[in-house]
């Protein structure tokens, strides 16, 4: 792509990625969560693929790194679900514990990050998985289409 697009992409990529991570982290307070944040993050990756061409990105962003990230995200999610197995499967075992367990204040308030028990951690796990998943989809499809042109 042209020089202008590449410089704008360089400028824009960090706000997009941080915004995506913000949505993942504040999933239990403001609208958002694992999937939406991951989708925003993956749109940043798509911007890079469009700006710099899928071949250059493919050199840095290896496909099996992403599949490891995706599997680890999924395992984190299932691990959290198994965490409360002593009582029942999806049990929220962090409620009341110091990490994420504070009881949210009632009435209209800006919301407290450290509430929600397991839910923020699950948001992070799903976010990891969706970041890796959607980036792989964008990357592989871009590569597949570019190959088709070359073969013709």
């Amino acid at each position, binding site marked *: 792509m042209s020089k202008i697009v590449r410089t704008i992409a360089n400028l824009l990529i960090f706000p997009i990625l941080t915004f995506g991570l913000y949505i993942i982290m504040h999933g239990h307070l403001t609208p958002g969560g694992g999937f939406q944040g991951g989708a925003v993050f993956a749109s940043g990756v798509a911007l890079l693929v469009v700006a710099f061409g899928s071949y250059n990105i493919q050199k840095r962003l290896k496909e099996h790194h992403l*599949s490891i990230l995706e*599997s680890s995200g*999924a*395992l984190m999610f*299932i691990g959290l*679900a*198994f965490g409360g197995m002593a*009582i*029942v*499967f999806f049990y929220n075992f962090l409620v009341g514990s110091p990490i994420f367990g504070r009881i949210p204040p009632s009435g209209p308030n800006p919301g407290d990050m450290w509430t929600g028990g397991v839910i923020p951690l699950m948001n992070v796990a799903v976010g990891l998985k969706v970041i890796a998943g959607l980036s792989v989809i964008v990357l592989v499809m871009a590569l597949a289409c570019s190959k088709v042109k070359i073969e013709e």
Partner: protein
Amino acid sequence: MDALVIHSPILIIAIPLLAAFLTPLISKASNRARDVLVIAALAFTEFLVIVLAKDIYLTGIHVYTLGASSPIVTIPEQYMVPVRIILEVDAMSIFAGIMSATVCLAGAIYSLSCVREETGKDRFYTLLLLLTVGQLGMEFTGDMFNLFVFLEILSISGAALAAFRTRFADAVEGGFKYMVISSVGALLVLFATGIFYAQYNLLNIAALAQAMQYTMLDKIALTLLVIAFLMKSGGVPLHWWVPDTYTPAPAGVSPMIYSATLACMYALYRICFTLYGVALNAATIGWIVIIAGVLSMFVGVTMALHQSDVKRLMAYHVISQGGYMLLGVGVGLAVLDNPEALATYGREAISGGLFHVINHAFFKGLLLLTGEALFYRLGTRDLNKMGGMARNMKFTCVFFLIGALAISGVPPLNGFASKLMIYEAAYQLNPILTIVAMIVSIITLASFTKVFQSAYTGPALSQYKDVKEVPMSMLIGMGILAGATIFFSLFPSLVVNTIIYPAADALIDQAAYINAVMGGV
């Protein structure tokens, strides 16, 4: 040990899911470790299903609420309705669970060796385990929306597996068709779930069944659900995708896609019997299912006779034998509202249909695997090019004979036992049904003699002189299904009394299903 039994409904779904996402990481270590992980996960699931089945036949329905303070609490303190996702496993669900777990185990062991030369094997096993999770989840869940989510997991992994050998053009096309059909069907199921939520603000099947008033909207939801699941289980007017998806599917996968089709048929029965129960006008829906069954039987087998491709012929038999199951349970559904007819032949018909479901899952899985073994060794599926394979592939030929005799209902084997129950029960509702069923059984035998004659017997052809027997793990996979078929053939009464009758009673008895969740409130 009893803690294992209490938590087993969710463990049966969570263990394969955990293994599914572990395989890409473990396969970085070594391929052997990944194969061991996959088979261990599926074997442990099979063990859990058997343990749960034993407990259900003793103590009745198992309820498991995800995330509650204890597995049994279905309705939280200050609420009137169940709020969380509830897994409800009664005799009917565990019956389908046994069938799915066994066929998936056999399919996985079978595909150990024949997928060796493919690329991307760890993704193959992840999809295989996700297909198992989809089936078992659909059979155990008690929640309408959860049913939709597991149906989608099943469809996506099934389509991706059907199209796994991307170097064949027909494999990609089969997978694409299966995906289009499944996504349209699943959206219809979601639409029906939306209609239920609009009227009753409930998603739990038991709570819905209790609150059901069968209004006009419920009729629309009923048609959407019946049509979507009839299409997913291969009923005739909508069976078009079955041959295209089964023919190019890789080796161990076709029986698993077949048991996924049976999981959708289980969902059809669950909707008609438990969600609506006596509320729906049973005669109409019953006769719709019966007509779909009879058409499936006839069209399936006549088209099968015409095929020259081994796997496509067996795919058409999936449709025709699925017609038997629809006929069997359809007869039971048609008489649901007059109890004395239900007692005399309705319950027999349902048990016949369900017995045929599990019988057919075993010997159809076996036949698909033998068809695939031919393709694995000869490189072609076209019957016109084969000949004299009994000489070099002895075990495959023996397994094929067991499957072919069982499917055409020849007395010593279990196909006969379940078809006999269907004939007897369907005769009392309407004799024509039994006549068509018998004719179709004869044509089934005709089509399999055709396969046996052209593929196995005949003079030894020169180009297949050096063909060897299939590798050991494929034989083990076929052996499991053949053993199950033989076991069911030798002890039909034992099997029917312990597994099939409780399943049929659980299907008919809607009140017990509701009380298990609503606590008799």
